[in-house]
């Protein structure tokens, strides 16, 4: 048994060097001055002026999560309730497949669709109507997030719903519950773990994205990811960038912890 435990040693060493220590370095950078290298709190306190950006990033990510859930749940439910397993597999694959193509390109394809001189507006112009402002607003950024991360919502939901014992639904129906009641009292509570993990998997990349907001957003839709990226790639100030990364990370972990509270003790509630 002891030798068995040693099998984990390379992994633990690897994770220490490449996960724990780098986070330590981020913390170190976040609390030092960019020029003198002295300890300082100014990076962290300086973040206060980006509160608006933080709030906006969180807000857009939350909206994306909500939309993903609203359209993802029926989809996952539909797939999970197909009687034939092969149909389920096929649909599952169809949802997965777009994720294999670089998300940069898929986002660019949306730009091509939505631009003022893009495909949709060209078509509208052909019909003799006024082009619509489809791109470079919060809506377009949310659309990009929903598009890119929707499969992350559907897949965990599917795997939870598919495991729901159909006899439970039948039992509820036999006891006189209508569709709405079955959904509210049986299906929904049983899919909470899926909702939680889907929510996390959409929220985390959405709140930290920088590519989607650059491409589908405008000068006014700068998100926290954009600012962090710029601190490392253009306006060289890794200390401020590290401080922002640290705050972002803590925020995300806090959100995930809160979300996990929802699935804690879930089994007891259902019983």
């Amino acid at each position, binding site marked *: *048994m002891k030798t*068995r*435990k040693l*099998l*984990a*040693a*390379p*992994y*633990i060493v*690897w*994770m220490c060097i*490449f*996960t*724990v*220590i*780098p*986070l330590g*370095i*981020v913390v170190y950078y976040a609390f030092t001055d960019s020029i003198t290298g002295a300890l300082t709190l100014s990076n962290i306190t300086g973040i206060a002026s980006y509160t608006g950006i933080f709030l906006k990033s969180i807000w857009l990510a939350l909206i994306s999560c909500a939309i993903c859930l609203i*359209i993802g749940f*029926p*989809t996952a*439910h*539909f797939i999970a309730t197909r009687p034939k397993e*092969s149909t389920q*597999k096929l649909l599952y694959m*169809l*949802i997965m*497949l*777009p994720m*294999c*193509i*670089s*998300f*940069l*390109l898929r986002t*660019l*394809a949306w730009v*091509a*669709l939505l631009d003022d001189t893009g495909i949709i507006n*060209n078509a509208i112009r052909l019909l003799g109507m006024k082009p619509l402002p489809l791109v470079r607003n919060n809506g377009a950024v949310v659309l990009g997030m929903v*598009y890119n991360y*929707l*499969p992350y919502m559907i897949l965990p939901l599917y795997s939870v719903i598919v495991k729901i014992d159909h006899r439970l639904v039948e039992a509820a129906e036999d006891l006189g519950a209508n569709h709405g009641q079955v*959904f509210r009292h049986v299906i929904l509570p049983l899919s909470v773990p899926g909702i939680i993990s889907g929510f996390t998997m959409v929220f*985390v*990349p959405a709140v*930290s994205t*920088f*590519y989607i907001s650059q491409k589908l957003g405008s000068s006014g839709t700068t998100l926290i*990811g954009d600012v962090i990226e710029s601190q*490392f790639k253009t306006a060289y100030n*890794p200390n401020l*960038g*590290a401080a922002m*990364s640290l705050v*972002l*990370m803590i925020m*995300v*972990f806090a959100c995930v912890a809160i979300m996990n509270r929802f699935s804690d003790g879930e089994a007891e509630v259902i019983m």
Partner: protein
Amino acid sequence: MKRLNRFITIIVLIFLYVPMIVLAVASFNTGSDIAIWEGFTLHQYAELFRDANLLRLLLNSLIISVLASLIATMLGTMASLGIFSMRSRMRRLVMTVTDIPMTNPEIVTGVSLALLFAFAGTFLKIKSILGFFTLLIAHVTFNLPYVILSVMPKLAQMDGDLRDAAMDLGCTPRQAFFKVLIHEIMPGIISGALMSFTMSLDDFVISYFVSGSGFITLPVEIYSYTKKPLQPKIYALFTLLFIVILLVMVAMNLLQMKDAKKRVQARRAFRGRTGRAGV
């Protein structure tokens, strides 16, 4: 309710595939503007195969994802076995560390690794530390949790008596390990490997922070392309990739179905035999 679900599913599928269709159509366009159809051509595909640079980038991406997923699968499987035999407090600690790269925003992981490598570069006095190996390390790091999280449940599901049974039937502990244990968790290992391969292949954010000019993967290059007008041959490349992946997935599904059918038949035959024996 059911009709509504079906309607939404159809809308979702259309929504997911519209951009892919745009890309595929653009790859046959004579003009370079993705939004204006000028005529049909296969020119972009010919261009693609003449572009040694682009093919090299694709090869780079494949090398990194294959290597990273192999190493991560090996390390991750070993680690799962180790973690599984740990006491619960230690196990919880290790699993928390495993969760970090999973939950951490990619940009933070990328930034932290970039800072680590820069630090290591100055410390070890290596001028060009960013390159193949840093990219590989980063990819292995973010792949590891996926492997562990798909192998661990299989270990938990496994019947502990199986190993004892194998040993009763005359296996040495080592044989029992390879014939029974590894065999039982194989589906988990394979799905972990596949998942990390796809994650590696499509990863942009982390690669963007840890790659140097010497060794670049396809997504990183595409990012720098998109600042310039994108060359239409990229659409051709991805249309081809999409078709290949589609074919592989369909083939895998078919094989699995055949396999499942065979298993069902075998089980029936087995039951039939035992049934008769019982009579």
